[in-house]
């Protein structure tokens, strides 16, 4: 019996080996595309840019760039750009000019220019890619300011990592910052065809340090919300040129607007996606100073949607806990933390409302309240007839926030700073 069983197993496994022999292709026969950019074309409908890193053992065994033995940055990669009417015809044209075959099995992200996303042609081109077997549904989608071609060319490994790892880790940061949402090809297709919600994508840009001014008058503008920028606008210098910050907002297949990094955080808070993050509020007693608050514990937000009345009404209850990490003014809030708690609650309420209204102006359910509203309906025809995506624009929102300060860092007391003139 055992011999027969073994024979059966062997016979079943043999077909897999046979098929491998029939159409086998060596790994070196392929050029693995890790990043693809899509712009509006000049000579044809689309301009596609493919980044192919060189997989070698030279750079720390990882390949695809990084640092060589001398500690110099190594960028073994090639970028191809082609104007073409479709992806497959573009691939065919590139394949005719290189001694390898382009392969997309390791494609990490597709970068789409903002211009193309706003034209509505993006959906026409991208959503059908879910059919193509080499491109996975989990491939990330980034909407970039300016040219996708330049964005792809600027992608490089960071501190010895490989390009794919750098990109993957950069995108994964959304869980800790909330500055942009998660979007992959599968989610894009799901959300664009969904009756529950609309697509929200990662917004990126190149930040070459132009906004970082070395000289000029000292800043005196008062409190400024951290992260309230779009990608590419942050005043910073150094690090990766690629910057992900903000949310591209879609209605159907067309990009209709964008949220700043801070507004994206408000959205992430309501989604319950944030694991921990830092918010900075103005000091209630001394508005020229700020208080950074680290949020660590989130309860799942409680969302109720009333769809019985003519205009839907949404109730949100948010419970968060956090720590005070600094008190610039030196006020003794450790013994009076109610003031901070109330100020932070008010801060979140106002900004969630503002973001919600901005979404309504764009005719988009940015907070995905549709995911909750659908529970009020028993059948799909009832739900589709209600047309939530239209009704949400008339909805009213009430937000309740319950914030508790759990810890005050390594200090439980703030003593004033003294100088020769006394207490400052």
């Amino acid at each position, binding site marked *: *019996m055992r011999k*027969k*069983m073994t*024979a*059966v197993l062997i*016979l*079943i496994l*043999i*077909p*897999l080996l*046979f*098929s491998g022999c*029939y*159409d086998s292709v060596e790994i070196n026969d392929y050029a693995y595309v890790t990043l693809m950019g899509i712009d509006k074309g000049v000579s044809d409908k689309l301009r596609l840019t493919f980044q192919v890193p060189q997989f070698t053992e030279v750079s720390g065994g990882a390949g695809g760039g990084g640092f060589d033995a001398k500690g110099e940055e190594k960028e073994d990669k090639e970028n191809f750009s082609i104007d073409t009417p479709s992806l497959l015809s573009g691939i065919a044209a590139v394949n005719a000019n290189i001694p390898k075959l382009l392969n997309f099995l390791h494609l990490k992200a597709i970068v789409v220019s903002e211009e193309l996303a706003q034209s509505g042609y993006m959906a026409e081109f991208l959503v059908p890619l879910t059919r193509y*077997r080499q491109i*996975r*549904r*989990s491939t990330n989608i980034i909407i970039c300011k300016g040219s996708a071609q330049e964005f792809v060319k600027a992608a490089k490994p960071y501190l010895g990592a490989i390009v794919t*790892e750098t990109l*993957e*880790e950069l995108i*994964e940061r959304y869980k800790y910052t909330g500055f942009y949402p998660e979007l992959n090809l*599968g989610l894009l*297709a*799901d959300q664009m*065809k*969904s*009756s*529950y919600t609309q697509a929200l994508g990662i917004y990126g840009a190149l930040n070459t340090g132009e906004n970082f001014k070395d000289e000029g008058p000292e800043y005196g503008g008062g409190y400024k919300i951290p992260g309230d920028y779009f990608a590419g606008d942050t005043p910073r210098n150094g690090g990766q040129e690629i910057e992900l910050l903000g949310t591209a907002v879609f209605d159907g297949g067309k990009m209709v607007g964008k949220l700043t990094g801070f507004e994206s955080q408000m959205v992430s808070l309501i989604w319950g996606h944030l694991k921990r993050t830092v918010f900075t509020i103005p000091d209630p007693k001394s508005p020229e100073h700020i208080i950074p608050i680290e949020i660590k514990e989130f309860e799942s937000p409680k969302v109720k949607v009333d769809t019985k009345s003519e205009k839907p009404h949404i109730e949100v209850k948010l419970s968060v806990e956090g720590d005070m990490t600094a008190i610039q003014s030196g006020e003794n809030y450790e013994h009076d933390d109610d003031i901070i708690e109330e100020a932070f609650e008010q801060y979140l309420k106002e900004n969630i409302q503002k973001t919600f209204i901005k979404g309504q102006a764009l005719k988009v359910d940015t907070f995905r309240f549709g*995911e*909750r509203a*659908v*529970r009020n*309906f*028993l*059948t*799909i*025809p*009832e*739900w589709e007839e209600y047309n939530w995506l239209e009704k949400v624009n008339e909805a009213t929102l009430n937000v309740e926030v319950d914030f508790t300060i759990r810890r005050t860092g390594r200090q439980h007391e703030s003593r004033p700073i003294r100088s020769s003139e006394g207490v400052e």
Partner: protein
Amino acid sequence: MIREGNFGYHEAISMIIITITIKAFFSSPSAAIKVVGTASWYMTLISATTAAGFFMFQYILLKRFPNMNIMEIADRVLGKIGGSILSFLSFTFFIVTASIDMREFVEVMKIFVLPESPISFIMVIFALSVVFLCFMGLENIARFSKFIIYILAAGFFGVVLMSVPNFKTYRIFPILGYGLNKTIVTGMVRSSFYGAATVIGVFAPSLQGTKEIKKIGFTSIFISGIITSLSLLAFSLTFPYATSQELVSPMYAMASMVNLGTFFQRIEPIFLFLWNFGTFVEITVLLYAAIMIYCHIFHISDKRPVVLPMVITLYGINLIPESLAKVATIWVHALRMWGWIPYFMPSVILLIAALIRGKKGDANNA
């Protein structure tokens, strides 16, 4: 001479569960979601309950005619000509079902794994393995099923568990899908999904009596119902109803979306393993049932000379549909919507005829 042999409760249940549930890995879930929307995961439980109700007729029939298979019962109740006609219809249905399921498997294999290989090549290799399994005989097929069901179950539950992070509960709402009436009617019609349990009638003499047959039939349908419902629930939680009806193989798509950390990704090979082994068993069981019916009709005592021609017939029928779209939208759809008639009705007709004509099995066989 191929020996049917005897096999027990566990072997039979394993064989039937694999034969039934493997269909959930192909286009059937998408087709069900297209009709009932978000209600597919409990619609299949209605199908299982209906199938169990139909199986009751077969069980009562087999109890009335102990130690006889459905072909022998047909001969006794309807006479040799009437019985042969009914058996021939069943034979045709089994071989067509096996062919269509094989074509679906091969097409999906070509889309996802072997895009460069000609379809005929994949079919020939697959058919050769089926020939070998058929030559091994029914007892060995059943024992092989018991051997691999644990591996298949581990793989299946592994894929579902690893997909949990992609689950979103709102996707199963509105809970009644396209309406309760539609769900109930579709659920009853799609009882054909569990129709493979009726091979018990063909293999009855190899089982250990009518009590065992009862246990095997109902347990197989019950477990298959739970597994199918679980897989449909997993698809519904992973994909919104609008996109899940577009997918060729939601299970494969679900497996390919597993992304646990930066290095635990791309686990589809586990799924391929389930796919290949499960389909080998399913096609072989259906083909073997067809061969047994054919040999009975034409009084062929040795099945070996029939195996190869039958596999060639299987291969030939495989080539009839023009494309995967035709397989899924015409052939598989027809099998699921109307399959309950050829699967379950012969037993119902035979039982009614036996009661009217007062036919019974041999008393000394009871």
